[in-house]
C-alpha cells in the first residue's frame, strides 16, 4: 500500500505514537507517525547511525523504487518502512 506524503500541517488532535522504521538497514524509532525528512535524519543520528543532516534521504515505495524526501517535507510513516540516507561522493 502506497504511503502518501502528507504535506498538511500537524493538527492538535494528532496522536503522538512512536514508530520504528529502517534507515540504512538499521532500526530507528521515530517520535511520531508524521515527521519531516530532517526529523527522520535527526532521529537516526541521535540513535547512532553514521550519517549527518546533510545526507539525502529517500523512502522506498511499494513498487520498490526510492523517492527523495526533502528536509521540510512531512511524511506519514509506518512500521518497518525503509529509508536510505546517502551523501554525495565529493572528489577533489
Amino acid at each position, binding site marked *: 500500500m502506497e504511503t502518501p506524503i502528507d504535506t498538511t500541517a500537524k493538527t492538535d488532535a494528532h496522536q503522538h505514537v512512536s514508530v520504528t522504521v529502517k534507515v*540504512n*538497514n*538499521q532500526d530507528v524509532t521515530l517520535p511520531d507517525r508524521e515527521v519531516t525528512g530532517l526529523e527522520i535524519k535527526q532521529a537516526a543520528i541521535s540513535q547512532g*547511525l*553514521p*550519517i*549527518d543532516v*546533510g*545526507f*539525502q534521504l*529517500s523512502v522506498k515505495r511499494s513498487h520498490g523504487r*526510492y523517492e*527523495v524526501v526533502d528536509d521540510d517535507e512531512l511524511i506519514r510513516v509506518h512500521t518497518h518502512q525503509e529509508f*536510505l*540516507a*546517502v*551523501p*554525495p*561522493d*565529493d*572528489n*577533489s
Partner: protein
Amino acid sequence: MARRPVNPPATGWSLTIPPKIWDRLSDHVLGSAARGAVLLAGLADGPRGPRLLARELILADEGRDYIPGEFGHRALAPTFVRDAVIRARDEGLAYIAAHAHLGLDHVGFSEIDLASHERGYPSLSQISGQVVGALVITDHAAAGDLWLPDGRREELAETIIPTGNLLRLRSQPAEEGRPDSLHDRQARLLGDLGQETLRRLRVAVVGLGGVGSILVEELARLGVGELVLIDDETVEETNLPRLVASGREDIGRLKTEVAARNARRANPDVRLIEIARRVERPESLEELVRCDWIFLAADGDAARHWVNGTVQQYLVPATQVGVKVPLTPQGDVGQIHTATRLVLPGSGCLWCSRLIDPTRLAVDMHPAGERDAAQYVPGVPAPSVITLNTLAAGEAVNHFVFAVVGLHDEENDHASVIHRPRTRQRDLQEPRQDPTCRWCTSTGRLGLGRKGSTPF
C-alpha cells in the same frame, strides 16, 4: 606515451578490471572532461589476498550525476550514489567509486577525497552490506580506499588490467628489484622488476602432455614462482617422444609427478601444487581460480569449458594452446595448424568463438567408460609431433612473458596466433564476442567470483 612502470604482484587487496571496462572507465574519467563512475565488483580469494573483480561500470553523466561538489571540486550526486549502492546491495557486489587525478606514475587521495569517504562510506557499507570504497587513477597509477562490512578499512595494494600488457597499477612505482644472478641474462631483457614479477606469479598448466610438458619446462626455467599442475593421466610409451624430460621408467607414473620432478630440476625454488584430477573436479577448480594466469594445454571440451568459465567468472587470463594435424583415412595430410589463443576476461570467450561444442562437452563430462562408449567409432590416436608442440608452446610462453613485464608494443592487441607450418604462414585472429554471452559479459558470469556457482 611513456612506458608504464613494471610493478611485481603485491600482497593485499587487489582490484581486477577487464580490459573493455578499463578502456571505458579511463576514457570517461581520464578524458578531457574528467568525470566520475562506479564499478560494481564481485569478490574472490586470490593468491596474495582478497580480489575485487570489476563486473560492471556505471558512468556518471556530467551535470546530472556528476555535479559541483559541496566540499570538493566535483561530486557524484547523492541520487546516483544511492541507486548504485542499491544495485550493489541487491546484486551482492562491491561498490567502488572512481575518479581521476592529474599525474602519471604517482596518485593518492586528497584530504577532500578522504573526508568524503569518512563522511559517507560507513553509511554506504551499512546499506549494502558489501565492500564499498573508492578508486583514483592516472594513466599509470591507481590507489584505492576500501571499507569492509566488518568495519575494517584497507588500502588497495594493486589494480590489475589483464590487457595485452598485463597492467599492475599501484599508488607509486615499485622499488627496484633485487638483482638475481641466476637469471642475469634474461633479466637484461625483462628487468629486475620483471624477473621479480615472474617469481611472484602463480601459474597453472592444465594438461601435462606434449604441449604442457614444454610449458612447464619453460615456465620453471624462466623463474615463475609457483606452478599448479593439473592432469589426471599417466605416462604411456607413445607419450615419451614428446614428453619433456621423461624416460621409460616413467611409464605408468602420473604426468603430474613427472612434470613436478622436471620443474624442480629446472628451478629448485619453484613451489608446486600437483593435482592428479580432471580440471572440473572441485580440488582442481579451487586452485585454478587462485592463479594469475592459466595455460590450457588439454584436449577436450570439458577442459575448455571449465577454464573458460574460470577466466570469465574469476577474471584470470588464460592462453589456450593446441595443435591440429588433419589426416584423411587414406593418410593424406591436410593443413596443419597450431593455435595460441589469448582468452581475456570480458573480451570474447571460447564459447563466443565456437571453440566449445555442446555435444562433445556433454560426452566429455561422463565417466571415462561412458565417454569411450559414447564415441561409437573406436578412437584413432591423432598425430602428434614434438616440433609442432614446441611451435605453439613457445608462442604462448613468449606472449605471457612479454605481457607480464609490459614488453608488448600494442597493449590492445588481443589477437590469437595461428601458425600454418606447411605454408609457413602466421596469421592473427581477433577475438569474437556475442553481446549477450552468458560467460564473458556483464549479463552473464563475468566477474561474479565466488558469488557465482562453482563448479560453473
